[in-house]
């Protein structure tokens, strides 16, 4: 589902964020991405979302080579990738429902379809009763779950999460990891970037470890 072939990303200066990274994630696989600050985790996620283009090598998502993707095609790729951020990126000028509905709105879904899917996603994260509230009224954990509902509302085959448990206590973190596990069980490829070693150890899943832009562990053939 996600494949990196000898991917190198060099920024303008001498700074090289990723060096010849190789890995392949299967459909329905849940993996962690870890490494020290500045090891290249964000760059790796940005390459998958086509926020950045690799300097060398190939990034392939869902069988589509992203290197040669024309700019105007980028939105259509992003519709197949759900993203969860540490700071949620929720909009406080609209309700929880409207926040979650955004990916459907950009696709031009009908109102009935939107209502049905948004409620299904909110139900999944246990926030069905709070659809009319403003995200500002919710706790940190609830806001994070709204972000997750938004990421999965259009049933994307790929789910990326950047420090999704960064500000949450262990119990809430475990809740959120349980959600991710459920998504992977229905065939979603989930990649979670995190610092949280305890969480990674608890889950006992494949872990891609970056060090100075190089993949030092977890890059081999997929498997736990």
């Amino acid at each position, binding site marked *: *589902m996600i494949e990196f072939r000898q991917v190198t990303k060099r920024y303008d200066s001498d700074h090289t964020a990723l060096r010849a990274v190789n890995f392949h994630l299967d*459909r329905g696989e849940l993996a962690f991405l870890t490494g020290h*600050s500045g090891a290249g*985790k*964000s760059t790796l*996620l*940005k390459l998958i*979302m086509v*926020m*950045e283009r690799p300097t060398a090598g190939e990034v392939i998502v*869902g*069988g*589509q080579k992203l290197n040669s993707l024309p700019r*105007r095609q980028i*939105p*259509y*790729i*992003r*519709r*197949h990738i759900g*993203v969860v*951020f*540490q*700071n949620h*990126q929720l*909009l406080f*000028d609209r309700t929880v429902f409207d926040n979650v509905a*955004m*990916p*459907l*709105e*950009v*696709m*031009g*879904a*009908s*109102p009935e*379809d939107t209502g049905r899917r948004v409620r299904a996603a909110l139900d999944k994260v246990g926030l069905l009763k709070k659809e009319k509230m403003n995200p500002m009224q919710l706790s940190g954990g609830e806001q994070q779950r709204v972000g997750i509902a*938004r990421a999965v509302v*259009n*049933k994307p*085959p790929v789910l990326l999460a*950047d*420090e999704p448990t960064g500000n949450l206590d262990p119990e809430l973190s475990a809740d959120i990891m349980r959600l991710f596990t459920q998504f992977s069980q229905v065939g979603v490829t989930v990649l979670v*970037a995190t610092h949280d070693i305890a969480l990674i150890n608890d889950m006992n899943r494949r872990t891609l470890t970056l060090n100075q832009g190089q993949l030092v562990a977890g890059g081999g053939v997929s498997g736990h």
Partner: protein
Amino acid sequence: MATDSRQKPDNRRGANRSRSLLSDQARSYLGHHRKVARDSIQRMWRTPVASAMTWTVMGVALALPVALLLLLTSLQGVSAGWESTARITAYLAMDLPAEDARGMAAEIESDGRVVSVQLVERDQALADFRASSGLDEALDFLEENPLPHTLLITPEDSARSAEGVQALVTFVENMNGIDQVQVDLGWLQRLNAMTDILARAVWALALLLGAAVILVIGNTVRLAIENRRDEILVAKLVGGTDAFVRRPFLYTGAWFGLGGGLVAWLLIQVSLWWLSGPIERLAGLYRSEFTLQGPGFDGALALIIVAMLLGWLGAWVAVRRHLDDIEPGDIAGG
């Protein structure tokens, strides 16, 4: 794997199914346009003072050239009216007898370029002058009639161009017994020249103010883009196309244009109403049919459509310049 979520599992098949899919998409596309259009109006209402100020700026900028254009059209109407009644006045020599004058009138009337010739004999002319000038007593002091016989020559339609009239004037001047030929085209040509200059000035002004409107809207929309930065980022993140992200701002520009157009129309109507009295009096003094024409329904519609186009264009400029700068590259932290 990359399932298109617009495809609903349903039991329709084949062409029927794809057609209904297309019409579904068209419906949701139009539905989205309606929603965005409504939403951008509501946003405007939420800041009524700021919006009203933008409308007013636009309205003033649009009303000025439009008012001048209306004035210009009215003036051109005046000169066109005069042109069609252009007449040549030929003053005969003082000592020419009345029979000779009649002979000349007949001769000129036989020319193909002339519709009619009216002879005003000197006695008649004096009587008319006495009646219209109010100089009754002063005229009594004169020992003899100072006025010559006069021929009023009305040219044929085809001869009413500036050159045609000039040729006719030359022809009459060369006849024996003509003292002086006058044609009222001199001031008409000056008026035409002046309206030509005015027309160019008005169009230049319209262009400048149109550009100003585009810049004002562009700037307003730029601020709107800044205010909605987060929303734009998220929309781009979840796969909003450029067209999707631009749409609300283009509608905002068009609505500003609509408001500006309405304000401009209002300003023009109020000024017309305010000016109509004095202009009628002035026109009355000149015995002219001159009236200041309002824009009418078509004109008002054109004004509003142009204003909306300008607003849209201004928004488009801002969107081109600023929206593409907002890329979600920075928000994936870490």
